[in-house]
């Protein structure tokens, strides 16, 4: 067989494979890393977060659990305090209500309560988001809530390469990291997907530092600040508006904790016009925080009132027509951009 020359930088993966690649590389490098959760073994993760890992690492490191989230997330906390580096999967972020105590009162606080003497180097992975009619208990993003509670980093990749690099960073981090993957960015074969869910992903060791936003598209007329699947929508809208000669910047926050407020400010300082797009609920969450981050420093930067495109404060409805009315989709994003452009 003749090798065709394939430059490493053009190898393309979907987001789930990129995420799994990082987990596998870290597991090879560090025997203390293990992954536990429901259906992460033979099934490979309901949203393909662990596909193939059982084959390589076996059931002692890729561990199917009972439906006991408090039990196994707490187990991960305890194992982390003893120096292991667990990755625990909460199948849907929506289920956090059965185990939140271990997350925010234990995982996130032990390091502080111990005055820095006890580290909790673990990753909590969880699937978020809607768009496929899974109803009010299986479609939530909830990252604003996780980000409100101190002591845990909150990482929310939108692109395959970031999914890999942020996962590697999360596993190596000595602090607890919540890694939230939107089902719609994973590139799953059984779900509608944006072409951006498959992209070039660096091979080998690849780390993206946690806490730095990425300018997904540069622009000068208005800034869309967003995260996760909404980055894909925002880029679609920016591309469409470019045809009209509008130059829209898209900032992908990539993590909510730490929040890259400087990047937000830099973008708004340039454009003077802000649209925040958030698939989480509107009030008391990310969209307000981003707006306030600018106002806190200089409300005069706003050349027009900022626009927040989020899920209104309603549970996610089941019926497709209602769900799409609630989600921050292209139409609402575009309208908001046009509004800030005046």
């Amino acid at each position: 067989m003749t090798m065709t020359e394939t430059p490493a930088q053009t190898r393309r993966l979907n987001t789930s494979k990129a995420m799994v690649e990082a987990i596998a590389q870290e597991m090879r490098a560090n025997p203390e890393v293990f992954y536990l959760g429901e259906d992460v073994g033979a099934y490979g993760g309901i949203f393909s977060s662990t596909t193939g890992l059982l084959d390589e690492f076996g059931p002692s490191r890729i561990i199917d659990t009972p439906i006991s989230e408090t039990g196994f997330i707490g187990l991960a906390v305890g194992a982390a305090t003893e120096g292991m580096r667990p990755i625990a999967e909460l199948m849907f972020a929506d289920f956090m209500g059965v185990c939140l105590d271990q997350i925010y009162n234990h995982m996130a606080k032990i390091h502080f309560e111990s005055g820095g003497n006890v580290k909790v180097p673990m990753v909590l992975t969880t699937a978020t988001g809607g768009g496929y009619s899974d109803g009010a208990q299986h479609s939530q993003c909830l990252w604003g809530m996780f980000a409100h509670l101190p002591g845990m980093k909150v990482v929310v990749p939108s692109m395959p390469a970031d999914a890999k690099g942020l996962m590697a960073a999360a596993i190596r981090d000595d602090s607890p990291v919540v890694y939230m993957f939107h089902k719609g960015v994973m590139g799953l074969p059984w779900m509608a997907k944006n072409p951006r869910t498959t992209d070039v992903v660096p091979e080998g060791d690849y780390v993206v530092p946690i806490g730095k936003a990425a300018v997904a598209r540069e622009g000068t007329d208005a800034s869309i600040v967003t995260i996760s699947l909404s980055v894909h929508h925002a880029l679609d809208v920016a591309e469409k508006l470019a045809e009209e000669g509008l130059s829209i910047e898209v900032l992908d926050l990539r993590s909510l904790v730490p929040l890259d407020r400087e990047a937000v400010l830099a973008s708004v300082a340039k454009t003077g016009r802000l649209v925040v797009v958030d698939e989480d609920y509107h009030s008391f969450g990310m969209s307000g925080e981003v707006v306030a981050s600018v106002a806190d420093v200089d409300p005069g930067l706003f050349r027009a009132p900022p626009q927040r495109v989020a899920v209104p404060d309603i549970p996610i409805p089941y019926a497709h027509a209602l769900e799409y009315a609630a989600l921050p989709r292209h139409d609402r994003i575009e309208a908001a951009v046009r509004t800030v452009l005046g």
Partner: protein
Amino acid sequence: MTADVISSPATDALEAGVRRGLYDAMVLSRTYEEAILREYHADKGPGFDIGKGLVPGEMHLSAGQEPVAAGVCAHLTTDDAVTATHRPHHFAICHGMDLDKMTAEIFGRVDGLGRGRGGHMHLFDPATHFSCSGIIAEGYPPALGAAFAFQRRGTDRIAVAVTGEGAANQGAFHESLNLAALWKLPVVFVVEDNDWAISVARDDSTAIPNNADRAAAYGMPGERVEDNDVEAVYAAAGRAVARARAGDGPSLIEVHTLRLWGHFEGDAQGYRPELAEVPEHDPIPRYEAALREAGVLDDGGVSETKERASARVEAAIEFAKASPVPDPSTVLDYVFA
């Protein structure tokens, strides 16, 4: 006090009418699931896109588990409450839910139980005191509340709380059983052991083989029904329901049942070693044969039951399809009462 752990007893032959009723309920439920299966997959393609079609989203069907719902609900009236799970159809149907409204909800239409807001995991029906939750084991605590209200009002109404065997390792299961026993609430806890929690086998999740043994931890009777036998379920449920109605408190029943299909539609079940043999354990043909043998059913009876079921189900599907899609401008409605 130690709980009575009763092993499932041989039942004396039931009255023909009851047996026919159990059979009819199972057939209606299965007919329904087959129709939903057909409608669900009708327009997911090309390929399989879970968000597409007239019935989008996750779909957890109950085929194979009909003996549990039929056997339990035969003892209930629509004044009794049932709280079900992500896999609720068989209980909804056997408890007497209006099929039109239920189906319209599954199709996300304005005439649905939840005007299209809920979906198939969120069937709330005040007429039959039916509710469900997609969160594992979290349907148990609200059942306590219905039972509490019934008790306070001096009625003999009861609540039935259903979960799968996977749910028996969730904290809410434990808290609910303790509270119900402590306050002698009229609840029947039902665990449907279909051997699987998605891809996790019960032996890989549960430290003991029989969840009915857990009843002893709360001082309540626990009974396990083997063989997915609708009449054994009927008998066990009869005892538990009577106990609850008499004010003697809750019971736990685990039924060893069968998940005939995947966990949800789209599940290829590659993790399931016994997959090839699953169909031969279908409880409905088995019960049909037994009733034929006993002279309760003949060809005419079988086709009568099946035709009646089919007519009711197809009418419900027609009703659902004819019902309007919710108007997006109403998306903000119904948050607050």
